[in-house]
């Protein structure tokens, strides 16, 4: 966000933004593979259906955005014919042809998706805190690094460290 509103910090912010975006793309791919091989703990039996729906939807949206955002970034730089420098001489090839209008569309999409990701993250984090502090139903513990405490363990929840 500072990138688009700072003249003096623009260069170094953009310079770290690009490799960080690609790093997130790689990490989320690894995470998805891991998640498919190691399914998440099931949600508590007593959880209402609408909460289950919101939880599952938010996960799909988060994965979708974490894939889409860096790919749109890579695509938009390609369409603008900007070099995509990760570090030193290490750069990525363009994935789209040079087209000014395509760049304009993707540039707007990048901003819209970024705000969506920000909003989804805030909503997801708020919901997690609701479970931790208000509902106290073991759902937060199943996301956190530490094991669920005995009193909060729900039936069907795995004891493993989950992240």
């Amino acid at each position: 966000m500072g990138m688009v509103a700072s003249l003096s910090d623009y260069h170094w912010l953009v310079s770290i933004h690009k490799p960080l975006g690609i790093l997130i793309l790689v990490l989320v791919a690894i995470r998805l593979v891991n998640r498919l091989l190691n399914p998440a703990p099931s949600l508590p039996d007593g959880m209402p259906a609408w909460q289950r729906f919101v939880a599952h939807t938010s996960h799909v949206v988060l994965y979708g955005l974490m894939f889409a955002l860096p790919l749109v970034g890579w695509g938009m730089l390609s369409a603008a014919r900007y070099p995509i420098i990760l570090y030193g001489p290490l750069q990525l090839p363009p994935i789209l042809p040079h087209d000014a209008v395509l760049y304009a569309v993707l540039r707007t999409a990048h901003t819209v998706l970024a705000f969506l990701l920000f909003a989804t993250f805030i909503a997801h984090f708020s919901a997690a805190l609701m479970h931790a502090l208000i509902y106290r139903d073991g759902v937060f513990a199943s996301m956190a690094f530490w094991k669920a405490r005995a009193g909060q363990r729900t039936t069907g929840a795995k004891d493993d460290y989950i992240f």
Partner: protein
Amino acid sequence: MPCMKGDAGWFSPHRLTQARLIDTFEQVNGIYSGFRRNHAKGVCIAGYFESNGQGTRLSKAVVFQPGRVPVIGRFALAGGQPYMADGPKAVRSMALSFRPRDAEEWRTGMNDIPVFAVRTAEAFNEQLLASKPDPATGKPDPAKMKPFLAAHPETARAIQLINAKPFSSGFANATYNSLDAFRFVNATGASMPVRWSMVTAEPFEPEAPDQATAQDKNYLVDALIARVEQAPLQWHLIVTIGQPDDPTNHATTPWPDNREHVDVGTLTIDHIESEAPGNCRDVNFDPLVLPFGIAPSDDPLLSVRSAAYSQSFTRRAGEKKQPSAVQTPDTGMGE
């Protein structure tokens, strides 16, 4: 996103941002759909850079290894009006993109003045606002310029230096300077402050006072096109190496003449064509698109240029494109 334009944030609403800076250009010049907000009137060029290898001890950038590197670029006039008439005293620019095969691109934007007029983005913004033509006279109001110059003695000095050097008669026989300082990093890891220039191989001819004719609004570019049709044009890339004490964060301050100058190669321009989809029109000549071996200096204007050019590029990319003032088919003697 409308809420992003001009926003410096809730805590610092008056801070100058790239959006505000481009807004100033639009305020002073008007909005011309699809065109750059500065250096709006221009023409595309192409050719090659023949590197002589003298630059390899200065920088590890692949572009300085001996050999030929394809180049595309753009000649333009400073100012935000794409249909302005060519005229004396219009600052001319040469923008280039060096494109070595299998190595990083290098982009540079240079002007045919010896120093830049301002040191910071804020000063640039103020100067731009002060130069806005008075609707009554069609000319800048001296009453606005005076307080600006009084507050910026470095600009007054720079303008004196700029006025002391006569402009050449055209694009072809002008020398273009990086103005901002950069750092070259060589293979041993040594970093040195540099500025560079494209020095014309043509003999110098000063501008003639009667050169601008009322009929031909594009007399400078037309002369350039005619010249390229006859024979390719050449410039020498001269790198000036600064001493440790030479200021790298003052684009208004020249370096002493006795600094080491190294000729690292020859630029040949043998093609010229009007702006069109996919050519130089749709390239942003961001001076911070640099290869490994060239790095920014602490010149505050570099990040400013990168941010501002990006803002202008983003705004114009999606706009409906109008034909450029200069129309010429691909002309030249290339291979």
